């Protein structure tokens, strides 16, 4: 499968925008990815080993959070996994 690395994490993934690897599940793919690029681990996972709240994972066009098996979902060689840090903010008026 192919894992797409977002711009901010490429520095921790050998500069790669996309990484091809062989895995049977999403969590297996993330294990291989972080074994090959250990610096990625702290950016993707909390100290307890959970995916950080602001890190979104998309298997093809599906949010992994809403897949029945979540990170245990089986993957095929043609699948893509996108890592998408969240985008939010705002003026945050103190009076509202």
């Amino acid at each position, binding site marked *: 499968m192919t894992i797409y690395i977002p711009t*901010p994490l490429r520095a921790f993934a050998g500069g790669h925008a996309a990484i091809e690897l062989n895995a049977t599940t999403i969590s297996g793919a993330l294990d291989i990815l972080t074994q090959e690029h250990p610096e990625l681990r702290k950016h993707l996972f909390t100290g307890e080993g959970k995916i950080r709240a*602001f890190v979104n994972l*998309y298997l093809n*066009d599906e949010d992994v959070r809403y897949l029945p098996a979540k990170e245990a979902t089986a993957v095929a060689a043609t699948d893509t996994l996108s890592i998408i840090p969240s*985008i*939010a*903010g*705002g003026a*945050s008026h103190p009076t509202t």
Partner: protein
Amino acid sequence: MSVLRLSTAVYEAIRAHGEETYPHECCGALLGQADAEGWQVKIAVRAGNTRTDSAHNRYQIAPAELVKIEREARSQGLDIAGFYHSHPDHPAQWSATDLAEAHWLGCCYVITAVAQGKATVTNSFLLAGVTEEDKRFEAQSVVVEEQSIGSSGD
């Protein structure tokens, strides 16, 4: 100070988006290429603001939309260089909310102040640092250049 370069067309498209969505915040992605000084933005892609509960002072881009935007960037040989949003009736300065919810280290966050429906100041801030714990915004120099590049989006 790092530099954000963008064409007049992209610059004006970002500002026009903020005026169109006033009094709500607009948001979108900036596609471009890194250079020695910072980022060169080629395209601004409009995105929907999913924070309809508080759109006057919050923005959020659906990750599913980002997946599509990233796909578009790849197809054009570009990267996501950063994001833009507007501050209706509020200065073009990053807020505590902007910093807390910024996670694209090394990318630029462009903010346009829109006063009474009219775009005024546009600033850009680089999300510097290497971890969530040491991230910070650093002001960037915004250089608007005449080029034959444009914008796209919904």
